[in-house]
Protein backbone atom coordinates (compact mmCIF):
# COMPACT_ATOMS: atom_id res chain seq x y z
CA UNK A 1 0.00 0.00 0.00
CA UNK A 2 1.15 3.57 -0.71
CA UNK A 3 1.16 6.09 2.13
CA UNK A 4 1.25 9.86 1.74
CA UNK A 5 2.48 11.70 4.85
CA UNK A 6 1.94 15.29 5.96
CA UNK A 7 4.02 16.82 8.76
CA UNK A 8 2.45 20.04 10.04
CA UNK A 9 4.58 21.03 13.03
CA UNK A 10 8.19 21.98 13.57
CA UNK A 11 10.87 19.76 15.07
CA UNK A 12 11.32 19.42 18.85
CA UNK A 13 8.45 21.81 19.62
CA UNK A 14 5.80 19.20 18.83
CA UNK A 15 6.00 15.43 18.78
CA UNK A 16 4.32 15.35 15.34
CA UNK A 17 7.53 15.02 13.30
CA UNK A 18 8.74 12.23 15.60
CA UNK A 19 5.49 10.30 15.32
CA UNK A 20 5.50 10.71 11.55
CA UNK A 21 9.10 9.46 11.39
CA UNK A 22 8.32 6.39 13.50
CA UNK A 23 5.20 5.70 11.42
CA UNK A 24 7.10 5.93 8.13
CA UNK A 25 9.84 3.61 9.38
CA UNK A 26 7.24 1.05 10.51
CA UNK A 27 5.33 1.32 7.22
CA UNK A 28 8.46 0.66 5.18
CA UNK A 29 9.47 -2.23 7.44
CA UNK A 30 6.01 -3.72 6.85
CA UNK A 31 6.64 -3.61 3.11
CA UNK A 32 4.56 -0.55 2.27
CA UNK A 33 5.68 2.37 0.11
CA UNK A 34 6.08 5.96 1.26
CA UNK A 35 6.81 7.85 -1.94
CA UNK A 36 6.57 11.33 -0.41
CA UNK A 37 6.45 13.27 2.86
CA UNK A 38 5.02 16.77 2.57
CA UNK A 39 6.06 19.38 5.15
CA UNK A 40 3.48 22.12 5.70
CA UNK A 41 2.74 24.86 8.26
CA UNK A 42 5.62 24.88 10.82
CA UNK A 43 6.53 21.44 9.52
CA UNK A 44 8.74 23.21 6.97
CA UNK A 45 11.12 23.95 9.86
CA UNK A 46 12.09 20.27 9.92
CA UNK A 47 13.95 20.94 6.68
CA UNK A 48 16.61 23.39 7.90
CA UNK A 49 20.17 22.11 8.06
CA UNK A 50 21.08 24.69 10.74
CA UNK A 51 19.62 22.90 13.77
CA UNK A 52 22.06 21.91 16.51
CA UNK A 53 20.09 19.74 18.96
CA UNK A 54 21.68 18.82 22.33
CA UNK A 55 24.13 15.93 22.02
CA UNK A 56 21.94 13.60 24.11
CA UNK A 57 18.87 14.25 21.95
CA UNK A 58 17.81 12.95 18.53
CA UNK A 59 18.61 14.92 15.36
CA UNK A 60 15.25 15.07 13.64
CA UNK A 61 16.47 16.57 10.36
CA UNK A 62 19.34 14.11 9.99
CA UNK A 63 17.01 11.20 10.75
CA UNK A 64 14.66 12.26 7.96
CA UNK A 65 17.51 12.89 5.54
CA UNK A 66 18.95 9.41 6.16
CA UNK A 67 15.59 7.66 5.97
CA UNK A 68 14.80 9.41 2.71
CA UNK A 69 18.15 8.53 1.20
CA UNK A 70 17.85 4.89 2.19
CA UNK A 71 14.31 4.42 0.90
CA UNK A 72 14.00 6.99 -1.88
CA UNK A 73 11.44 9.17 -0.13
CA UNK A 74 10.67 12.55 -1.69
CA UNK A 75 10.83 15.12 1.14
CA UNK A 76 8.90 18.16 -0.07
CA UNK A 77 8.83 21.46 1.80
CA UNK A 78 5.90 23.72 0.83
CA UNK A 79 7.26 26.86 -0.80
CA UNK A 80 4.58 29.26 0.48
CA UNK A 81 4.82 28.03 4.05
CA UNK A 82 8.63 27.95 3.82
CA UNK A 83 8.94 31.55 2.62
CA UNK A 84 6.87 32.82 5.57
CA UNK A 85 9.10 30.94 7.97
CA UNK A 86 12.51 31.52 6.43
CA UNK A 87 13.31 28.14 4.88
CA UNK A 88 15.07 28.67 1.54
CA UNK A 89 17.12 26.67 -0.93
CA UNK A 90 19.89 28.21 -3.02
CA UNK A 91 17.59 29.07 -5.92
CA UNK A 92 14.94 30.67 -3.75
CA UNK A 93 17.55 32.63 -1.80
CA UNK A 94 18.92 34.03 -5.04
CA UNK A 95 15.46 34.80 -6.40
CA UNK A 96 14.46 36.60 -3.18
CA UNK A 97 17.72 38.49 -2.81
CA UNK A 98 18.68 36.69 0.40
CA UNK A 99 22.36 36.15 1.24
CA UNK A 100 22.00 32.67 2.72
CA UNK A 101 19.95 29.49 2.44
CA UNK A 102 19.27 26.76 4.97
CA UNK A 103 17.59 23.80 3.28
CA UNK A 104 18.89 20.43 4.42
CA UNK A 105 20.15 17.60 2.22
CA UNK A 106 17.38 15.42 0.88
CA UNK A 107 14.67 18.08 1.18
CA UNK A 108 13.37 20.04 -1.79
CA UNK A 109 11.11 23.08 -1.97
CA UNK A 110 8.02 22.86 -4.16
CA UNK A 111 4.39 23.92 -4.40
CA UNK A 112 1.18 22.83 -2.70
CA UNK A 113 0.28 20.91 -5.85
CA UNK A 114 2.66 18.22 -4.60
CA UNK A 115 0.41 17.75 -1.58
CA UNK A 116 -2.73 17.32 -3.67
CA UNK A 117 -0.90 15.03 -6.09
CA UNK A 118 0.23 12.93 -3.13
CA UNK A 119 -3.38 12.70 -1.96
CA UNK A 120 -4.46 11.53 -5.40
CA UNK A 121 -1.66 9.03 -5.99
CA UNK A 122 -1.44 7.32 -2.59
CA UNK A 123 -3.87 4.93 -0.89
CA UNK A 124 -3.85 6.62 2.53
CA UNK A 125 -3.04 10.17 3.56
CA UNK A 126 -1.76 10.46 7.14
CA UNK A 127 -1.51 13.87 8.83
CA UNK A 128 0.72 14.55 11.82
CA UNK A 129 0.34 17.95 13.41
CA UNK A 130 -0.94 20.03 16.30
Amino acid at each position, binding site marked *: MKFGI*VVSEGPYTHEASDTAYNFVKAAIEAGHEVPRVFF*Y*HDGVNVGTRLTVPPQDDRNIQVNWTNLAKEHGIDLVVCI*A*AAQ*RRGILDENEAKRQGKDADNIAEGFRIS*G*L*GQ*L*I*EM*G*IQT*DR*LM*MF*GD
Partner: protein
Amino acid sequence: MMEEGVKKFLYVNRKAPYGTIYALEALEVVLIGAAFDQDVSLAFLDDGVFQLTRDQNTDGVGVKNFSPTFRALGDYDVNKLYVERESLEERGLTADDLQEIVYEDEDDDWAEKPSIRIISRAEMADLMHDQDVILSF
Protein backbone atom coordinates in the same frame (compact mmCIF):
# COMPACT_ATOMS: atom_id res chain seq x y z
CA MET B 1 -9.84 4.00 -4.36
CA MET B 2 -10.07 5.21 -7.92
CA GLU B 3 -6.52 5.01 -9.30
CA GLU B 4 -7.40 6.99 -12.44
CA GLY B 5 -10.61 8.67 -11.42
CA VAL B 6 -11.73 11.54 -9.29
CA LYS B 7 -11.21 11.35 -5.53
CA LYS B 8 -13.33 12.92 -2.85
CA PHE B 9 -11.22 15.42 -0.90
CA LEU B 10 -12.50 16.87 2.36
CA TYR B 11 -10.81 19.84 3.99
CA VAL B 12 -11.70 19.81 7.69
CA ASN B 13 -11.53 23.21 9.40
CA ARG B 14 -11.76 23.09 13.19
CA LYS B 15 -9.73 26.15 14.22
CA ALA B 16 -10.51 29.82 14.62
CA PRO B 17 -8.88 32.33 12.28
CA TYR B 18 -5.99 34.72 13.16
CA GLY B 19 -4.97 33.27 16.54
CA THR B 20 -3.13 30.65 14.50
CA ILE B 21 -2.34 30.39 10.79
CA TYR B 22 -4.03 27.03 10.13
CA ALA B 23 -7.22 28.54 8.68
CA LEU B 24 -5.33 30.75 6.24
CA GLU B 25 -2.96 28.02 5.13
CA ALA B 26 -5.86 25.57 4.74
CA LEU B 27 -7.46 28.04 2.34
CA GLU B 28 -4.22 28.21 0.37
CA VAL B 29 -4.34 24.43 -0.09
CA VAL B 30 -7.97 24.60 -1.23
CA LEU B 31 -7.15 27.22 -3.86
CA ILE B 32 -4.25 25.22 -5.30
CA GLY B 33 -6.18 21.96 -4.98
CA ALA B 34 -9.04 23.37 -7.07
CA ALA B 35 -6.87 23.06 -10.18
CA PHE B 36 -6.74 19.27 -9.83
CA ASP B 37 -10.38 18.57 -10.76
CA GLN B 38 -11.14 16.42 -7.74
CA ASP B 39 -14.45 16.30 -5.87
CA VAL B 40 -13.79 18.92 -3.20
CA SER B 41 -15.78 19.67 -0.03
CA LEU B 42 -14.98 21.89 2.93
CA ALA B 43 -16.16 21.10 6.44
CA PHE B 44 -16.43 23.76 9.14
CA LEU B 45 -17.02 22.52 12.65
CA ASP B 46 -15.95 23.37 16.19
CA ASP B 47 -14.06 26.70 16.10
CA GLY B 48 -13.73 26.36 12.32
CA VAL B 49 -17.17 27.95 11.96
CA PHE B 50 -15.62 31.23 13.15
CA GLN B 51 -13.66 31.41 9.88
CA LEU B 52 -16.83 32.24 7.96
CA THR B 53 -18.24 35.07 10.09
CA ARG B 54 -19.09 38.43 8.52
CA ASP B 55 -17.38 41.78 8.96
CA GLN B 56 -13.91 40.60 9.93
CA ASN B 57 -11.59 43.61 10.08
CA THR B 58 -7.95 43.01 10.92
CA ASP B 59 -6.71 46.61 10.54
CA GLY B 60 -6.22 46.93 14.29
CA VAL B 61 -4.05 43.84 14.69
CA GLY B 62 -2.05 44.34 11.49
CA VAL B 63 -2.66 40.77 10.35
CA LYS B 64 -3.85 39.92 6.85
CA ASN B 65 -7.65 39.57 6.52
CA PHE B 66 -8.24 36.50 4.38
CA SER B 67 -11.99 36.17 4.91
CA PRO B 68 -12.90 37.78 1.53
CA THR B 69 -11.12 34.87 -0.17
CA PHE B 70 -13.93 32.52 0.87
CA ARG B 71 -16.25 34.52 -1.41
CA ALA B 72 -13.94 33.80 -4.36
CA LEU B 73 -14.10 30.03 -3.94
CA GLY B 74 -17.06 29.77 -6.31
CA ASP B 75 -14.85 31.01 -9.14
CA TYR B 76 -12.60 28.02 -8.47
CA ASP B 77 -15.54 25.58 -8.62
CA VAL B 78 -15.31 25.05 -4.88
CA ASN B 79 -18.93 25.37 -3.79
CA LYS B 80 -19.60 22.79 -1.12
CA LEU B 81 -18.97 24.46 2.23
CA TYR B 82 -20.58 22.36 4.97
CA VAL B 83 -21.08 24.10 8.32
CA GLU B 84 -22.13 22.18 11.42
CA ARG B 85 -25.27 23.50 13.10
CA GLU B 86 -24.34 22.31 16.60
CA SER B 87 -20.98 24.09 16.39
CA LEU B 88 -22.73 27.33 15.43
CA GLU B 89 -25.25 27.00 18.25
CA GLU B 90 -22.65 26.34 20.95
CA ARG B 91 -20.96 29.57 19.83
CA GLY B 92 -24.15 31.64 19.83
CA LEU B 93 -24.12 31.96 16.04
CA THR B 94 -26.74 31.48 13.35
CA ALA B 95 -26.48 31.24 9.57
CA ASP B 96 -27.10 35.00 9.44
CA ASP B 97 -23.78 35.65 11.19
CA LEU B 98 -21.90 34.02 8.32
CA GLN B 99 -20.76 35.65 5.10
CA GLU B 100 -22.89 35.15 2.03
CA ILE B 101 -20.91 32.88 -0.26
CA VAL B 102 -22.36 31.96 -3.64
CA TYR B 103 -21.45 30.23 -6.87
CA GLU B 104 -22.90 30.14 -10.36
CA ASP B 105 -24.33 26.74 -11.23
CA GLU B 106 -23.27 25.93 -14.80
CA ASP B 107 -25.79 23.08 -14.91
CA ASP B 108 -28.64 25.46 -14.11
CA ASP B 109 -28.10 28.32 -16.56
CA TRP B 110 -25.47 29.87 -14.25
CA ALA B 111 -28.01 30.57 -11.54
CA GLU B 112 -26.45 32.01 -8.40
CA LYS B 113 -26.71 29.55 -5.50
CA PRO B 114 -25.46 29.50 -1.91
CA SER B 115 -22.24 27.58 -1.27
CA ILE B 116 -22.79 27.29 2.48
CA ARG B 117 -24.89 24.34 3.58
CA ILE B 118 -25.76 24.12 7.27
CA ILE B 119 -25.86 20.47 8.31
CA SER B 120 -26.34 18.55 11.54
CA ARG B 121 -23.56 16.83 13.47
CA ALA B 122 -24.86 13.45 12.31
CA GLU B 123 -24.77 14.63 8.70
CA MET B 124 -21.23 15.92 9.26
CA ALA B 125 -20.22 12.45 10.45
CA ASP B 126 -21.78 10.97 7.31
CA LEU B 127 -19.93 13.47 5.12
CA MET B 128 -16.59 12.60 6.72
CA HIS B 129 -17.33 8.93 6.26
CA ASP B 130 -17.90 9.39 2.54
CA GLN B 131 -14.41 10.67 1.62
CA ASP B 132 -11.27 9.31 0.02
CA VAL B 133 -8.84 11.88 1.42
CA ILE B 134 -9.29 13.99 4.56
CA LEU B 135 -7.01 16.96 5.19
CA SER B 136 -7.24 18.35 8.73
CA PHE B 137 -6.44 21.91 9.75
